[in-house]
């Protein structure tokens, strides 16, 4: 069974139903609320395009940790129904149904129970789709299909009928977030294998010849079978890694740090045996005697960073539960591989590649840190502020969440200069002088009026340049309540005769260059 919650990044934000919201990552929309979709905002659009389509849309930066924490609530509810829950990603989880189905009297009864339990946790119960089929791939398709029907009743595919259910679906369903890479699926479509029934009808050895292991996986999936058998082997029993925490960790970050080291050691151990884990069981033992175990899987193999992130999610979710009984501290974390496959040399061909590049960057960055020190290797993170220097800061790399991405920082700052932003932002602003046609220094009054027309400017005492055009001033009166931090300054955009544009700031009679639009 697969439980698919639609638009989870938006649901996790707890917005009111009917409000248009778009979640972005790297300036592109990754999830939208139903109201935003109606207005024309679609995944993959850039921020400006989305705002043009729907001016009232609230734009939020993606926060995967928040999504994971919120999803843990849902999973907690399912804990009472089924013993083993596999979390694929925040918003989607898979449950093997043999035992629970017998206990609750059949697949349809189980599906209804799950659907109502999860629906009770969500603001919009019809945003949760439940599908039961022979394997995770057809069950996912069934869950998504059930969302398309009014009221989203769960969809149960009879045992053995998965092949015929899956047949009419287009091959594009195999592309991400499915198991195969986009390029591979594109090639298949171009070769004429438009529907999964076309794929299933081909001879598996032909597909293996043309596409390799991917082709065999595609054939099995298109026939409604489980995708896991061809390249999986029995995990060696001694691969379980444990870390004992003594004294027990009371805070999430302490435990998460130990988890990170554990995940690294685990991944290295698997690496040594040329294996890669596709499903991992993480068990967290507390001093109160409780054990919280979860199964995690991802689209492909789980890297050390991904495992460390999931350990953090699991700890986070457990801690934020309101009725966490006799918590105690975390005294032990166990990592057990459930499914392993041969670690293939060309991993990016099989699973998409993003993980492999991230791993490479992370490991080599560690070497860089050893060379120049941790403070010198940085990543940009949004801060908050009006001046260009405050809006984005460089933060030492080990303080940045390894798989995080930009956090929320897009709150509105009235009075900040709109895009385009300067491409050079001086950390130590450069002094400048701006004079009018008569050579007098241009000053700014308390009301934000310039005392003259800027005619010439010089930076750091350098040669004087003619001012071709200028715009502003944009006045900001910051922190008026703080006698120390009170700043009343204005910003002016200036273009020199040679076509170079600068962002200048002026306070009383002092000018300086905040940034250059190089």
């Amino acid at each position, binding site marked *: 069974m697969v439980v698919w919650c639609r638009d989870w990044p938006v649901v996790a934000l707890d917005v009111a139903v009917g409000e248009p919201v778009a979640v972005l990552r790297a300036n592109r929309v990754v999830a939208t609320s139903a109201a935003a979709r109606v207005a024309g905002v679609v995944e993959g659009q850039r921020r400006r395009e989305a705002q043009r389509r729907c001016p009232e849309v609230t734009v939020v930066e993606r926060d995967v940790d928040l999504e994971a924490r919120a999803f843990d609530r849902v999973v907690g509810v399912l804990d009472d129904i089924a013993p083993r829950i596999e979390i694929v990603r925040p918003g989607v989880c898979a449950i093997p149904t043999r035992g629970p189905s017998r206990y609750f009297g059949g697949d349809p009864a189980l599906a209804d129970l799950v659907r109502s339990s999860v629906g009770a946790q969500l603001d919009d119960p019809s945003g949760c789709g439940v599908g039961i089929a022979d394997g995770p791939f057809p069950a996912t398709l069934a869950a998504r299909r059930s969302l398309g029907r009014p009221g989203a009743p769960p969809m149960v595919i009879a045992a053995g009928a998965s092949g015929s259910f899956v047949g009419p679906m287009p091959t594009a369903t195999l592309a991400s977030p499915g198991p195969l890479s986009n390029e591979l699926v594109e090639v298949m479509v171009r070769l004429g294998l438009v529907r999964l029934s076309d794929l299933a009808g081909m001879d598996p050895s032909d597909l293996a010849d043309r596409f390799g292991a991917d082709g065999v996986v595609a054939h099995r999936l298109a026939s409604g079978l489980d995708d896991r058998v061809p390249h999986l082997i029995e995990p060696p029993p001694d691969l379980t890694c444990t870390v004992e925490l003594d004294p027990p960790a009371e805070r999430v970050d302490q435990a998460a740090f130990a988890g990170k080291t554990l995940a690294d050691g685990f991944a290295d151990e698997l690496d040594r045996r040329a294996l890669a884990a596709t499903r991992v069981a993480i068990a967290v033992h507390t001093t109160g005697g409780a054990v919280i175990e979860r199964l995690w899987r991802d689209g492909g193999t789980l890297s050390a960073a991904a495992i460390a992130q999931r350990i953090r999610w699991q700890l986070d979710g457990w801690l934020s539960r309101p009725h966490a009984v006799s918590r105690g501290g975390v005294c032990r974390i166990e990592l057990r591989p459930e499914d392993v496959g041969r670690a293939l040399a060309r991993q990016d061909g099989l699973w998409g590649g*993003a993980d492999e590049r991230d791993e490479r960057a992370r490991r080599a960055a560690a070497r*860089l840190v050893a060379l120049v020190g941790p403070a010198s290797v*940085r990543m940009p993170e949004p801060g908050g502020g009006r001046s260009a220097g405050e809006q984005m800061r460089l933060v030492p790399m080990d303080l940045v969440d390894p798989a995080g991405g930009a956090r929320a920082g897009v709150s509105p700052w009235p009075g900040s200069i709109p895009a385009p932003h300067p491409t050079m932002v001086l950390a130590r602003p450069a002094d400048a002088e701006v004079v009018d046609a008569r050579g007098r220094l241009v000053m700014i009054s308390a009301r934000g009026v310039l005392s003259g027309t800027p005619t010439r400017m010089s930076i750091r005492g350098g040669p004087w340049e003619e001012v071709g055009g200028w715009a*502003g001033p944009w006045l900001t009166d910051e922190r008026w309540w703080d006698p120390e931090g009170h700043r009343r300054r204005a910003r002016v955009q200036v273009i020199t005769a040679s076509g170079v544009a600068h962002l200048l700031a002026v306070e009383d009679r002092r000018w300086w260059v905040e940034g250059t639009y190089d």
Partner: protein
Amino acid sequence: MIRSINSPDGVRNSPDGVRNSPDPGSVDRLAEMIRPTALAADRTLPVHPALAPLFARGALQRGSVVRLCGPGATSLTLALVAQASSEGAWVGFVGTDDLGWSAAADLGVDLGRVLVVEQVPTGQWSTVTAALVDAVEVVVMAPDHLVRHGDARRLAARSRERGSVLVVTRSAPWPIEPDITLHATEPRWEGVGRGHGRLVARSLTVSADGRRSAATERRASLWLPGGAGDLAVRHPVPDEIARRREAGAVPEVHGTALVS
């Protein structure tokens, strides 16, 4: 297929016009011709479609060295790496102090896959950049000192081996001729008047020249930044409008609205 090749010594016509099978030598030559060449196209990193005309294969060749100069070189650098970054490549920056990251994000760079190394002591520069070439697929450098010939050669060799791209920006000097040089020229901002408006967009003309396949000069007219803070192709304004704009009769508005 063989019939369509004109090789006089390969195909012998018999007197009655029927062609006999050609001699083995020409078949081998033919096989050489149609054997797929080592797919140099696979060894590329994607670029924004507006920049593709500047490159011989429409994309950044892995293992190459690109140099950027002129006003607007910084924006151009960020726009150049943005497409690869948004598709999963890591980008490393060394020596490029004071970059504007909001602008980078607007141009499409994925800030979650950016490594910045600042304040590198001159003596360690070559080790640090070598480590960076191992880590990421694109290395952007703006060395403030003159890099030694040997260091530059070793770095280029390492990047060729790793399949990374070296980008030298801000007109920094580079001892070896780069594979391709992009010159940004004729910057013209729109949107700002004399005391009113705000910076909206800049038109830029970029020309590319370089070695080997980049030897023919190519040009592109761009809006960088365009109205949304990103990169866009600039279509030429008809002469009549350009002339009237010079005379002040037509107000300067962000370009494409007038071209219809």
